């Protein structure tokens, strides 16, 4: 027998007991050819193209899942940033298009469709403005549509006018869904340096450099990494890195196999493997618990950033060797509401908002799924976004903000978002305002690429 018994057992244990799964297969679909000066025609073309291209996505993914015995949790779609095809459409029409996307997702039986997006890191075009105006309503009146807005990049700096608008948009979106704890904001990401092939939501979109249609895969497995580390309680940090690397390698290989198989059966090119460690609320499927296993009493304490940097880098190294096409965000996600260890860290007053910000400078994304005091002002939200964008711009990395100012909730309350989105303790913000910074507007210039100290 080619494969040893203990190796088979390891794989089976990873899948059945340690939550190894393919987190998502995401089909990227270009919608550029759907653009039309007649809105109704465009609306129809978008619906037909998506339901036609992804018609078999769910069915094929489920078949592959059963044959290989490894769960594929989500089947998703990412599309061309919608602002780029809006043209002269009105705000009302943009909202109608969001509903069309929602309906397409419902018809296909997929959980999210990402790409109700605009790239405004340098300036806001007519279509971008229409999309921004439509956002709060579009997100609160749809269930499956995810939006992302790029407001900063290392090459162009930070568009503070857009940052200012995003604070207001988030407040309005939260207010419109106040009976559901501001859920609309859980589907809205503000990006710096976004990637064009991210398969994970809510930030997925099918970038301008992508082809007609592509299949991207996101794997996950914090539980697997955690269990591997538990077997080496005395290892030094070099060995810890090695254990994570080897585990990431195995996870990624499983993901690539499944991704390529699904792509082959759908007759669609395979795009990239995103090897992010993405936590879920399942027992022991937590990124925070990995950091604690490395040696922290509670996530958020001193040493958290060192441990996270080690882990993030090791995941990338293991994954990069396992797949020829690594892309997306690849690294570790640290969403609060989807990670029991993070939630515990906040409840125990170990993990704070400033520490979370600092963590984003060494992990793959940013402030993610954090519930904030409902009284936070739009300008404070904008300032929080601006800080996060600055971290990304200067460090030449993707950063993002997906926070929910929960209407009517105060610091210390616990809010439920349901399903994969989990629950989160509400965090307070700094009480001193930043109105003047935001009201100045304009652009923060792109940084020097030399003299880097």
């Amino acid at each position: 027998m080619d494969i040893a018994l203990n190796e088979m057992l390891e794989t089976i244990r990873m899948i059945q007991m340690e939550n190894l799964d393919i987190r998502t297969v995401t089909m990227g679909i270009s919608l550029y050819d759907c653009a039309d000066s007649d809105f109704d025609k465009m609306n129809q073309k978008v619906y037909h193209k998506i339901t036609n291209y992804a018609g078999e996505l769910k069915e094929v993914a489920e078949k592959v899942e059963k044959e290989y015995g490894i769960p594929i949790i989500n089947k998703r779609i990412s599309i061309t940033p919608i602002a780029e095809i809006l043209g002269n459409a009105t705000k009302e029409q943009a909202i109608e298009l969001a509903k069309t996307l929602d309906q397409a997702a419902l018809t296909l039986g997929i959980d999210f469709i990402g790409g109700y997006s605009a790239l405004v890191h340098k300036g806001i075009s007519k279509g971008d403005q229409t999309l921004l105006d439509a956002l709060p309503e579009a997100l609160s009146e749809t269930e499956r549509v995810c939006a992302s807005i790029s407001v900063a990049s290392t090459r162009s700096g930070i568009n503070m006018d857009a940052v200012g608008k995003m604070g207001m948009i988030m407040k309005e979106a939260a207010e419109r869904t106040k009976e559901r704890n501001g859920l609309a904001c859980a589907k809205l990401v503000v990006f710096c340096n976004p990637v064009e092939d991210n398969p994970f939501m809510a930030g997925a979109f099918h970038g301008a450099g992508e082809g007609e249609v592509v299949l991207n895969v996101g794997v996950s497995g914090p539980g697997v990494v955690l269990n591997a580390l538990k077997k080496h309680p005395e290892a030094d940090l070099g060995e810890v890195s090695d254990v994570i690397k080897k585990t990431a390698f195995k996870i990624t290989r499983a993901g690539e196999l499944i991704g390529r198989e699904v792509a082959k059966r759908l007759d669609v090119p395979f795009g990239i493997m995103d090897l992010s460690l993405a936590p879920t609320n399942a027992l022991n499927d937590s990124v925070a618990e990995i950091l604690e296993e490395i040696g922290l009493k509670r996530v958020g304490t001193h040493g958290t950033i060192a441990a996270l940097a080690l882990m993030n880098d090791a995941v990338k190294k293991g994954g990069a060797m396992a797949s020829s096409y690594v892309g997306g965000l690849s690294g570790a996600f640290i969403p609060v509401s989807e990670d029991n260890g993070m939630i515990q860290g906040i409840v125990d007053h170990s993990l704070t908002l400033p520490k979370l910000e600092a963590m984003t400078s060494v992990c793959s994304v940013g402030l993610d799924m954090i519930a904030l005091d409902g009284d936070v002002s739009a300008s404070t939200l904008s300032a929080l976004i601006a800080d996060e964008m600055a971290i990304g711009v200067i460090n030449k990395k993707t950063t993002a903000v997906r926070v929910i100012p929960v209407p009517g909730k105060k610091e210390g309350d616990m809010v439920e978002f349901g399903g994969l989105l989990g629950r989160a303790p509400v965090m307070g913000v700094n009480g001193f305002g930043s109105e003047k910074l935001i009201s100045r507007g304009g652009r923060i210039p792109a940084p020097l690429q030399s003299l880097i100290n």
Partner: protein
Amino acid sequence: MENKRAVVSVVGKDQVGIIAKVTTILSGNQLNILDISQTILQDFFTMMMIVDVTGVENLDQLQQQFDELSEELGLKINIQLEEIFKAMHRI
């Protein structure tokens, strides 16, 4: 036709007749066993079989039969294509 192989894994409490019952399902489906190995780990019975599934369109129906047996014996029985193990453990 390309050879297609699957791994049948059985994990659970040791008891009389496990192998007999699992192989009965396989022979009932005209499936040839290529390799078989078994061990007892801390009172847990563990068995892996490599099965030739060339020409089998759908493993679903097999898995369903195994599910019924799993229930009856209180064991975990799974069938999955062999490539997943190769991908994870071989470069």
